[in-house]
């Protein structure tokens, strides 16, 4: 079920009312209800993949118990490997089988061997990378003795399948989310109001910003051969806002929805396009995944300790894996690698933690230097998104090649100039709101906070109206569902 669908518009209020009015008195039943509705939510796409969700949950539930019970180091490690291998096996098969099959075939053919290539018609289960990583973090934490395994199978299944964040994150840690299923939830008025506002802003980001930008990004990128560099640069600009609006919009809806049910889910985006360098960008973009890789890959490998080559290796490995996590294509690997290459100078220079605080804190405008830094960082990120968006390395290099050719100076004669102008106006409004709210969890959290209620309501109603006036009605899926 997509968040931006009529189905969800019916599903959410019904589930909300049943959750608080029917099941509130019994925690166990309330958790069971969450599992049930989460499975309905997930099964709306393809009910066959519910089996995977159950299998994945059960493997980690029982493996973690076994890891915790046994004192035998070998047995602990065996259970741990079994759990991780199962998770990665499922993920690898569904997501990467054809990629490896294709590449092995190409490699063998290149070396002069005859190779009969076999690929399978594998349908990628929605959100498999997200819930697999979430369950893996639980097992790893139990193995590291940072977490006691739960004996409550319903709570655990609810933790894995919790519908707001099941298909595209944020990738929650058991230590943070699981205990919330143990304690009775009471309705919190302020939390629910906040959640509703965050949902509203999330829908605006997705349906207005992302979906409008998508049309233009697709126009330029899908016919990249026909357009000069200036158009493709514009395409990259629109794609940068498409992917940000799409993914952070999803996260806002997910976090807001969780709040309606009394849950606190971790923040996933912190105004990444206001970053002053690439390191700051990565602290602000897809935070739940970045911190996952930091905690479970980067730090265990040694992190920023050790010799310089070791540090470089760690950074490259973690970025490349992170890229590969997004999809079975060399474009994602390259995107990860390029991000690592931009990060490395900051690491070597020891300036990767230079900008920890929000930019221009407690000020209205940034300094000239800050503005330049933000623009430069945005330009870098935007160019790297070309690799993320392209369907092949050849396409990515074609587009980048054109952007860095003399055709960049060709003034764009826009095929949809009305749409371009409107989308630029919407982006301007969006940036202004995000900038004004950059010190808060989400942009409109404290919008017009000291104003009379009618002004605040007018502002929220304006966002509703803009959504109705400018949304795309194609019901386009969220980009990150494919991961």
């Amino acid at each position: 079920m997509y968040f931006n669908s009529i189905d969800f518009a019916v599903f959410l209020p019904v589930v909300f009312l049943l959750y608080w009015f029917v099941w509130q008195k019994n925690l166990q039943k309330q958790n069971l209800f969450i599992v049930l509705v989460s499975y309905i939510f997930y099964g709306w796409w393809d009910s066959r993949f519910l089996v995977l969700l159950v299998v994945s949950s059960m493997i980690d539930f029982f493996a973690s118990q076994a890891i915790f019970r046994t004192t035998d180091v070998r047995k602990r490690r065996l259970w741990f490997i079994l759990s991780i291998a199962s998770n990665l096996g499922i993920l690898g098969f569904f997501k990467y089988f054809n990629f490896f099959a294709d590449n092995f075939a190409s490699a063998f053919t290149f070396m002069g061997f005859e190779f009969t290539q076999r690929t399978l018609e594998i349908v990628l289960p929605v959100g498999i990378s997200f819930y697999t990583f979430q369950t893996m973090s639980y097992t790893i934490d139990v193995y590291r003795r940072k977490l006691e395994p739960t004996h409550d199978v319903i709570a655990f299944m609810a933790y894995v399948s919790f519908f707001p964040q099941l298909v595209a994150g944020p990738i929650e840690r058991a230590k943070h989310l699981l205990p919330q299923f143990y304690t009775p939830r009471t309705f919190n008025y302020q939390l629910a109001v906040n959640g509703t506002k965050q949902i509203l802003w999330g829908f605006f980001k997705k349906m207005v910003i992302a979906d409008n930008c998508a049309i233009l990004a697709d126009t330029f990128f899908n016919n990249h051969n026909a357009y000069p560099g200036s158009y493709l640069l514009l395409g990259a600009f629109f794609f940068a806002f498409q992917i940000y609006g799409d993914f952070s919009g999803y996260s806002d809806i997910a976090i807001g929805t969780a709040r309606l049910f009394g849950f606190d889910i971790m923040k996933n985006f912190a105004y990444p396009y206001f970053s002053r360098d690439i390191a700051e960008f990565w602290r602000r973009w897809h935070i739940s995944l970045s911190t996952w890789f930091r905690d479970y890959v980067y730090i265990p490998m040694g992190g920023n300790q050790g010799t310089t080559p070791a540090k470089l290796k760690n950074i490259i490995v973690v970025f490349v894996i992170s890229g590969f996590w997004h999809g079975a294509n060399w474009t994602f690997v390259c995107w990860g690698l390029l991000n690592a290459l931009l990060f490395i100078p900051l690491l070597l220079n020891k300036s990767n933690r230079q900008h920890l605080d929000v930019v221009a804190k407690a000020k209205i405008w940034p300094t000239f230097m800050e503005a330049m830094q933000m623009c430069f960082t945005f330009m870098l990120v935007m160019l790297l998104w070309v690799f993320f968006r392209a369907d092949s390395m050849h396409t990515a290099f074609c587009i980048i090649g054109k952007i860095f050719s003399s055709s960049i100076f060709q003034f764009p004669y826009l095929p949809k100039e009305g749409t371009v102008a409107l989308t630029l106006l919407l982006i301007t409004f969006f940036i202004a709101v995000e900038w004004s709210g950059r010190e808060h969890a989400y942009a409109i959290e404290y919008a017009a906070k000291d104003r009379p209620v009618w002004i605040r309501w007018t502002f929220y109603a304006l966002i509703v109206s803009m959504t109705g006036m400018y949304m795309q009605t194609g019901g386009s899926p969220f980009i990150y569902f494919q991961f």
Partner: protein
Amino acid sequence: MKDYLILILKFLLFATIFYVGILFLSGWLLPDFLRPNLLFQSSGVGYSYKRMVEAESYGHTDIVFLGSSRAYRGFDTRIFAEAGYRTFNLGTSNQTPVQSYYLLKKYIPGLKPKIVIFEVNPDIFSNDGVESSIDIISNTDPDIGLLKMSLEVKNIKAVNGLIFSACRKFFRLSLLDFDYKNKNHKYIQGGYVESLDRTYRKNEGNAYYCNIMDKQLQYLDRIAEMMKTEGITMIFVQAPVTKKLYTSCSENKRFDTIISSKGCQYYNFNEWINLTDSIHFADGQHLNQKGVELFNKAVINLCLNTTH
């Protein structure tokens, strides 16, 4: 919890009123490109307003034509009048069965036809009906049927158009241009639109998008059922198009089979009459007057003389 639910209800009420206000003002004040989801087609692409107004007072008919521009530019009421039939052409731009159902419900009681000839083709059955809904919403007064139609197409543009139309009616404001004129077309009494331009635009309308939608087939069944209940003979006709356009659709055979199975007469005139693109067509999918004359005579001979 109670406070929260009350707050949400109050806000929804406030936001709804605000939205209606914003929409109405936008319709008046903003240029088209700044209101992409409020496409109000004053006077209609194919003289819809004139047609709807005329339909209200046209009186009883023998035949009503339904369908897209291929209907209102394909069935000349004058030719049928010469053959002794009083006809009305209810075709509208890109009309799909969803809109045909609404139009029949609204106008059948007044027009009281004995026969309904519905121009069907794979293209309109592959269409979501948004454009046609907006055209009809823009040119008729809002009613419950129109609301149902807007919700059926599941598109914000249709809903916005309806809200704007309702506001316009409420404030008794008119945006319509009854005397809308197009130098290439002429509105003929009874709903027909004649092509005045004699040049053949061979590069226009040369490809179909063929992906027949279940929703449209369901509405076709509802129309057939309604006609049966009303005791009206239903005839399905596929108007001729250029060979290039016709062969661009891979679903022709399947489409013929589906329509033939509906229990009504069905004539695919692409198979029945032989026309020459440059002589009989205005563009890929519309006949010129010469083509219309041949086509209409074939309809009279084949469909009507067989029926009666």
